[in-house]
């Protein structure tokens, strides 16, 4: 008996392409009103309809990905710390649509042989895009599991050929008072600045993210390109980056400038070093009822602990 493999039934054989593509309009125009709204919410095949941003196409899987349960797209995009849009977790989702992410350029400069200004389109071509499912641990003691799309930061940094004297990398992010309401408040010194040691920046776990859930990164999550450093507290992962500068001095990040006793340069996730005002021993994984124990280096110790051999992590918090 011949059983047809589902793969060779093209969707076009089942439903005319135009009708398939226009199925929502079709329903809407059919005047089915509320019934249609209920119906198309339940149509099968919508799993590929995505969340509304353009798809980033086929992605490579990564051995660095965790297989933990993902947080919902809705939670990841509606619970954000992005103070340029306001300090409430829901402010970024509310206001970030005004930010223009095209055209976008990032200038890579400082102690390098070949300083460059790259358009975001060129950045996207530097390396094949991968899906990286990382844990994100916020310094506020909550965490998520997020399917980022991006490439190793090293792919970007190699373009400019750093000089031997370069020891640190400083990231500066967009501060546009016209489109970012939070920039008018002085809660932090704008623009937002973050920094990594060169070896941290070149580490294969360190990601430049350009997407989320297989699609172009939503503005509130740091479009068009952001840093993701999964073993450090979330604020180290600077969003909407416009400048990357190689230096020989330790950069002063915005949070360190604002409260040096509370936020150090390293800010590695560390359950044994408490924030002066709250414990870091446990965290609330969003979507879970109880709290879980926070893991050293957010569970990435096997990959990154060697970066800090011999260092006193209580002093270098």
């Amino acid at each position, binding site marked *: 008996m011949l059983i047809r493999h589902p793969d060779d039934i093209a969707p076009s054989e089942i439903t005319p392409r135009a009708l398939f593509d226009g199925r929502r309009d079709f329903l809407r125009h059919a005047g089915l009103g509320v019934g249609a709204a209920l119906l198309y919410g339940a149509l099968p095949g919508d799993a590929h309809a995505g969340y509304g941003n353009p798809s980033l196409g086929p992605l490579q899987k990564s051995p660095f990905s965790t297989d933990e349960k993902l*947080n*919902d797209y*809705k*939670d990841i995009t*509606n*619970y954000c710390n992005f*103070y340029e849009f306001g*300090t409430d*977790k*829901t402010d970024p989702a509310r206001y970030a649509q005004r930010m223009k992410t095209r055209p976008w350029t990032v200038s890579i400069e400082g102690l390098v042989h070949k300083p460059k200004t790259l358009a975001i389109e060129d950045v996207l071509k530097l390396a094949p895009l991968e899906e990286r499912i990382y844990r994100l641990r916020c310094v*506020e003691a*909550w965490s998520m599991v997020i399917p980022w799309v991006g490439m190793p930061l090293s792919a970007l940094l190699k373009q400019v050929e750093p000089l031997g004297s370069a020891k640190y990398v400083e990231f500066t992010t967009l501060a546009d008072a016209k489109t970012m309401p939070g920039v008018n*408040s002085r*809660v*932090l010194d704008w623009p937002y600045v973050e920094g990594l040691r060169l070896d941290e920046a070149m580490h294969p776990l360190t990601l430049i993210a350009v997407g989320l859930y297989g699609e172009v990164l939503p503005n509130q999550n740091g479009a068009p390109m952001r840093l993701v450093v999964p073993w450090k507290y979330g604020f180290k992962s600077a969003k909407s980056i416009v400048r990357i500068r190689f230096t020989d001095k330790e950069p002063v990040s915005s949070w360190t400038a*604002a*409260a040096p006793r509370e936020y150090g340069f390293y800010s590695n996730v560390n359950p044994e070093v*408490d924030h002066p*005002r*709250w*414990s870091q*021993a*446990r965290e*609330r994984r*969003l*979507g879970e*009822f*109880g*709290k879980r124990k926070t893991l050293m280096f957010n569970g990435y110790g096997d990959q990154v602990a060697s970066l800090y051999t011999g260092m006193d992590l209580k002093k270098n918090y």
Partner: protein
Amino acid sequence: MQALLTPDRERFTLIWRAVWIACLWPLLDMVLSGMRDALGANPIEAITRGTGDWTLRLLLLTLAITPLRQLTGLHWLVRLRRMLGLYAFFYGSLHLMTYLWLDQFFDWVAIVDDIIERPFITLGFAAFVLMLPLAVTSTNAMMRSMGGRNWQRLHRAVYLVAVLGVTHYWWLVKKDITEPAIYAGVLGLLFALRLWHALRRTRRLAVQADADANGARRVSA
């Protein structure tokens, strides 16, 4: 106008019930939102914040009664004060329960650690403990058995509760102190109004005493 200045029994009951329901509304709203999964990505944080916010708001409202009465002459407002204070205690208890249960899961070691080591939790806890005797002695019978003067002396602790509560909020925010600053501003204004009122009264009394003394002199002369 007279109805507002001195509402009759029936009208006052109506006002009392309306305030009672209004004070319960934030809780109902949170419960309904929770059932609709509308508390956002971190519902426990939303509940903690919501109950904390309403504790502070009701505390400030309780403290606002006397200045409001003095400014407007609406003396019946004082008859709402106990309810407002008890509601502040009610939301404070919910706030503490949220912390003990939903946040710490009755992990007493961690809780004691928190209370000792985290100044903002120390203050919040102290504020709650200080509210306990006020809530317990809020009945008419307790007021009678303590005697008005002692009762009033004890219940002045509510000022301290409010200061502790606002500082508790101030110390916990990460960076943006806008909201705690608003609470602190309102509390400062309420203190200023009381001070102003007290000063005016002493001056009036002094003038009165002066006048009395003059009168007495004139009589004796």
